[in-house]
């Protein structure tokens, strides 16, 4: 079987598995977030938290709860990272904490994991103890993912409810999503990953003498438990520096398939929850179709560019194999790269910095699309719904009617929230890149010329969109980079999130508008095509100049 055929079957089998999951996982998640009953464990949790699970929250209170939880998480994780050497210090690093995890690095890492970005300016095996990885970083893998899903559900409630001030209870959503969706799936995935060869222990590993007599330290760590939620929660922060390329995180070609599946499965199933909650499954299918079309196009293009191996070094090689492992090969690596940036995961099984110029552009473009196809857990759905709101607005302008979506009028207030949501990320990316270039901080790049510029663009695009992957040659563990990217991650997560909840609040307050002859049907191919067009055109208008100076200059 040729590489191309095998690579195509790899993608098709993922699509088939995701199609099955859409129905079943989607319906299951709908029951979790829409149910009334609390289990005994959950009632215990609410008692410990001191919250009344029956009390629903307005959008403002919901937003403040999210922000309070995230703020406490950042502070707690920052302290944990700085104090990690005090308890259960395995491995026993010789470098003291003040030379290993600088304050600026701890800030960057704390923000990174709480915002579901998982950008890593450190090397896991050389900086973090097992204890802080599992009890600090991996905890945020769960709860930051749950926050994303909770906010998406709150937005959908805004569409589904009539004349209501209430969007649900954040603490209930957080608890249920964590305990009933993320945790059970992570347990299953972690055990399967161990069966595939992922390590799971609490030791420092084994130091041994190799066949030629050299010393090699085989590392240990609670990797499988972290790897499972890292993919499932579209987090992406690797236990080790080389992330999912590491044989202990991703030992075989089939664990590779599983990891791609895990990082896509929740984002692609959430439109089902949307469809069920607004009591019209066709609306879910329409959103799914938009996500699917963009995702398939991106995966195919990345494969075409990588298998085509254009560029001087790839031509000298005869295959774009630098930075890729043999067991995955070129095609499955390209598919992973596309999937990890179409979602907000940012895990990598190969190094994007060494991709062909245009193959390496695809991850950047995927992130620039706003990570909506399918996007991060929750953030993908709410991002796509905002784009859908913008689309009906654009369509309404064309025919001179007040636009509607899912029975709600899109008026001035709604479109203001939607526009603010859309503008914040490009502003962060472009201002950040400009600042790096103007202040000379770009000089930490590893490559020269257009590729070096691409490293800078990639860094801010990844941070502002909460992705976390990188053109990793650039050195970013400096006070300036850690601070700047930390700010980009923080603002890129929480400002959009506040605007989404504001939009949800103003939608929930409205009464339903009955569909009329002039209403644009939002479940038909016409609308699907329009949303795809809006995504692509908005992004092209915003980012083409930056792309022209980087990957396009290099690849054309």
């Amino acid at each position, binding site marked *: 079987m040729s590489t191309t055929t095998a690579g195509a079957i790899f993608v098709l089998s993922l699509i088939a598995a995701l199609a099955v999951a859409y129905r079943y996982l989607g319906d299951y998640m709908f029951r979790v977030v829409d149910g009334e009953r609390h289990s005994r464990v959950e009632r215990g949790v609410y008692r410990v938290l001191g919250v009344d699970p029956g009390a629903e929250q307005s959008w403002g209170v919901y937003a403040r709860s999210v922000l309070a939880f995230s703020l406490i998480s950042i502070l707690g994780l920052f302290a944990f990272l700085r104090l990690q050497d005090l308890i259960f210090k395995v491995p026993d690093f010789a470098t003291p904490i003040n030379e290993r995890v600088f304050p600026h690095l701890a800030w960057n890492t704390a923000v990174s994991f709480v915002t579901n970005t998982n950008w890593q300016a450190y090397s896991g095996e050389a900086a973090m103890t097992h204890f802080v990885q599992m009890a600090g970083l991996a905890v945020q893998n769960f709860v930051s993912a749950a926050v994303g899903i909770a906010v998406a559900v709150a937005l959908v409630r805004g569409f589904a409810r009539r004349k209501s001030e209430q969007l649900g209870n954040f603490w209930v959503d957080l608890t249920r999503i964590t305990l009933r969706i993320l945790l059970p799936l992570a347990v299953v995935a972690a*055990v399967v990953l*161990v069966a595939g060869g992922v390590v799971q222990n609490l030791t420092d590993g084994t130091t041994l003498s190799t066949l030629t007599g050299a010393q090699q330290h085989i590392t240990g760590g609670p990797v499988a438990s972290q790897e499972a939620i890292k993919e499932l929660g579209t987090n992406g922060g690797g236990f080790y520096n080389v992330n999912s*390329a590491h044989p202990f995180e991703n030992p075989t070609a089939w664990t590779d398939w599983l990891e791609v599946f895990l990082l896509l499965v929740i984002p692609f199933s959430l439109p089902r929850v949307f469809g069920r909650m607004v009591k019209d499954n066709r609306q879910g299918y329409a959103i799914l179709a938009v996500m699917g079309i963009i995702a398939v196009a991106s995966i195919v293009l990345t494969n075409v560019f990588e298998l085509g191996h254009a560029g001087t070094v790839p*031509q000298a090689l005869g295959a774009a194999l630098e930075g890729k492992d043999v*067991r995955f090969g070129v095609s499955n690596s390209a598919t992973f790269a596309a999937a990890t940036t179409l979602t907000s995961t940012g895990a990598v099984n190969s190094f994007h910095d060494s991709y062909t*110029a245009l193959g390496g552009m695809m991850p950047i473009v995927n992130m620039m699309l706003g990570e909506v196809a399918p996007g991060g857990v929750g953030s993908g759905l709410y991002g796509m719904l905002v784009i859908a709101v913008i689309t009906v607005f654009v369509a309404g302008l064309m025919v001179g009617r007040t636009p509607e979506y899912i029975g709600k009028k899109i008026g001035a207030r709604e479109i203001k929230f939607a526009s603010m949501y859309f503008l914040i990320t490009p502003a962060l990316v472009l201002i950040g890149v400009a600042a790096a270039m103007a202040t000379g901080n770009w000089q930490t790049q590893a490559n020269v010329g257009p*590729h070096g510029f691409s490293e800078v663009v990639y860094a801010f695009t990844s941070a502002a969109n909460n992705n976390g992957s990188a053109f990793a040659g650039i050195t970013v563990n400096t006070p300036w980079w850690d601070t700047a990217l930390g700010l980009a991650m923080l603002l890129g997560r929480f400002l959009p999130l506040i605007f989404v909840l504001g939009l949800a609040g103003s939608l929930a307050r409205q009464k339903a508008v009955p569909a009329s002859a002039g209403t644009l049907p939002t479940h038909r191919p016409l609308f699907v095509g329009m949303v795809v067009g809006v995504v692509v055109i908005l992004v092209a208008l915003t980012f083409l100049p930056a792309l022209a100076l980087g990957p396009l200059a290099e690849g054309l």
Partner: protein
Amino acid sequence: MRTPRWISQHLAAVRALLLFTVLLGLLYPLAITGVARIPGLRDHANGSLIEVNGQPVGSSLIGQSFTDADGNPVPRYFQSRPSASGYDPDATAASNLGPESIEDTLGDPALDPDSADGDGSKQALLTQVCARSKAVGELEGVDGSRPYCTADGVGAVLRVFRTDGLTGKVTRAVSVNQACPATPFIATYEGVTVECGRFGEDYRKGVLVPVRGSAPERSAVPADAVTASGSSLDPHISVDYANLQAKRVATIRGVPLDRVNALIDEHTDGRALGFMGEPAVNVLTLNLALDRMQ
């Protein structure tokens, strides 16, 4: 007195973080660690170690260097791929060099390249590939030439100066990766004599021109033999690279080539389910099997 709302929210947040830390940060990973103790999973969970005479010699998932103390290949072993970390699991890294990383930084001839600080030279990815290809070609007795590589194993790259910057007549051409007194890989470029590269000279006004040369599109040395992997711990090589090395290993060990080829087959992990990944030969288990045979 009731606690103000903004305080109670933060108190709930603190309690939530603590509770989830216990549940997701302690109970969950410890439970998985417990499950991973059961036979069948335990060896995997501990790193898939391979023991010889009761001593661990490696992990079947982690690659090793089969080189001597000076970094030269030990010819009786199949060689692994190049690695940006030297197969050190404590410092995993990829090269992160891009597809147009083609211009070297030449070393200062006044400094000793073997000193602790080196001579300041830095090889671009293209030169690394060309040098490895030449070395593998020599080790295996095949032609190691590749497109865009010079015969002396560096990137065949010129800086071409023209009268109007990007256009116009060529006024000067420098083979930037070939430090003087090397002989440039081509004598002339559009009628202008090509110079060798001089340390410290600023060639940035010239246009970078990689020169393809006449090497066949498909080199006798496979791509995985001359590229660093993403993990820097790649335990595998391609079937092509294993086949290329088979003759050398068979000769040195004095075993029939058929036996070595059979072992390669035995240690090739095919595509999972027939379509996932690429066929890959596990270098460590293959080398161990060779040692066991004798």
